[in-house]
């Protein structure tokens, strides 16, 4: 067994560093770009849906029950099932991939945004109102900056999950790094599977670090 594991990683090194493996339609560069495109676009769409929703629920305090249960529901929803269902409804298109990824990301974003908003001290909000701030000013100048760390946590969590799950695009004929995992399974080429897995993990970690860097940058300019 240790021999096989050693062999596997040795071959992985060769796979990752061969120039041929990086070029062409099935090359790492192209698959990486596809994977980034699926993941970033899906997370962006999810943020556009989830952020206002979370802010609204957190600001008004209405719909908290929905927000909490949405998280549970989102975690329970089987991605493979959702992808297949949308595929059967829409045919050969990117819809199954994006719908499934957005459905995965929205709950994490909504619940963390909501949690961030409710964590803001009510006294602070009262004080802001007492100073004559309007509702939208309280929201954008007081609540939002204070809720930002948790909101960013939600975005990071969503992005990590989306990057790992975007692998599924390959199941419905598309590209991305999942291509190596699914093709490697069909061909029983474990080096290819491992290569795909390592690259996906790497993308997730790098994007997470980038977002956490962004978070720190945002913090620095946070109004006191």
């Amino acid at each position, binding site marked *: *067994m240790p021999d096989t594991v050693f062999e596997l990683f040795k071959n992985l090194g060769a796979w990752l560093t061969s120039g041929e493996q990086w070029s062409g*339609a*099935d090359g790492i560069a192209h698959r990486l770009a596809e994977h980034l495109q699926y993941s970033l676009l899906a997370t962006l769409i999810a943020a556009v849906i989830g952020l206002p929703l979370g802010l609204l629920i957190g600001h008004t305090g209405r719909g908290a029950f929905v927000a909490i249960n949405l998280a549970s529901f989102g975690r329970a929803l089987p991605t493979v099932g959702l992808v297949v269902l949308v*595929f059967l409804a829409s*045919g*050969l298109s990117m819809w199954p991939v994006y719908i499934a990824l957005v459905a995965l990301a929205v709950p994490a974003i909504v619940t963390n945004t909501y949690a961030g908003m409710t964590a803001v001290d009510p006294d602070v909000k009262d004080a802001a109102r007492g100073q004559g701030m309007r509702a939208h000013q309280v929201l954008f100048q007081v609540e939002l900056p204070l809720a930002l760390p948790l909101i960013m946590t939600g975005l990071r969590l969503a992005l990590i999950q989306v990057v790992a799950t975007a692998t599924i695009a*390959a199941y*419905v*004929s598309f590209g991305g790094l999942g*291509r190596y995992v*699914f*093709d490697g*399974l*069909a*061909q*029983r*080429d474990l080096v290819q599977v491992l290569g795909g897995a390592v690259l996906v993990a790497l993308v997730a970690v790098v994007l997470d670090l980038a977002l956490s860097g962004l978070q720190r940058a945002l913090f620095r300019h946070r109004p006191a």
Partner: protein
Amino acid sequence: MNRRALLGGLFAAASVPALSACSSGITSLQGEGTVGAGPGSSKDGITIGTANFTENQVLGYLYAAVLEAAGVKTTVRPNLGTREILIPALKGGDIDLLPEYQGALLHYVAPKSKATEEGEMQNALTVALPAGLQVLPYGMAEDSDAFVVTRETAEKYGLTSLADLTKQNGKLVIGAAAEVKTREVGAVGLKDVYGIEFKEFKSLDSSGPLVKGALKKGDVDVANLFTTDTDIQANGWVVLTDPKNLIPGQHVVPLIADRKADAPVRKALAKLGNVLTTKDLTELNRQVDKDKKDPEDVANAYAKRHGLTK
């Protein structure tokens, strides 16, 4: 006890509600490396594995029907994956029996083999298979790989045979299951035997919704389908001829672990092989894919109708 046995034991023991409905961790206790290391003879039951397409599941349930009638207990594990996954599972003892296809199996175990005639291939298989595995006599039914284009594509490029594809080298996209990319009866052979080079290989599925959908939509120009797929005729698609005999005969043949291949098993499977025709198999596939019947029900009904079971 090797590593795998240890892990298997640990997890089998720890899986508290060991109700074990479909598959169990028990088989992993048999260890790896020893070919066909699963338990006992056919008296202990036979686990039939099947690949990830309709027809293979129909065949698996047909095997189960006739074996049960012969008094052998069977378990069918549907949809396990490709040959590349199934044969190691057969060697490891996770499954005991597998519906296979002569030519494709031969190319898997002996890529260099030149045998094309059924008897030759059967002999070549007997020689080339790893110790512990054997093929039983092949049946009448046949399901070949076919490389298919739409009528429009055929007319546009004047395509009737695989050889015609070389005129479009570097221009066409082929769609097939991912494993076909690395198979001799696939992208490798098309290049070596005919000199065909595609613009792109698109990994899709085994004569399933992806490859057929992509052919219809025009996402791929050439598709790898099975000759028993009724959609070829229904859509008026053109099967490219194979003048250089790249695609071998693909009679259905049972691949089995030696220890399970006793007389009652051989007899039951041989009887099925002599009854089931290509036409029958095509019709059974259609019932599952189009009428949405269960492969198990379709197989049982067929076996009963043909007097293979009571």
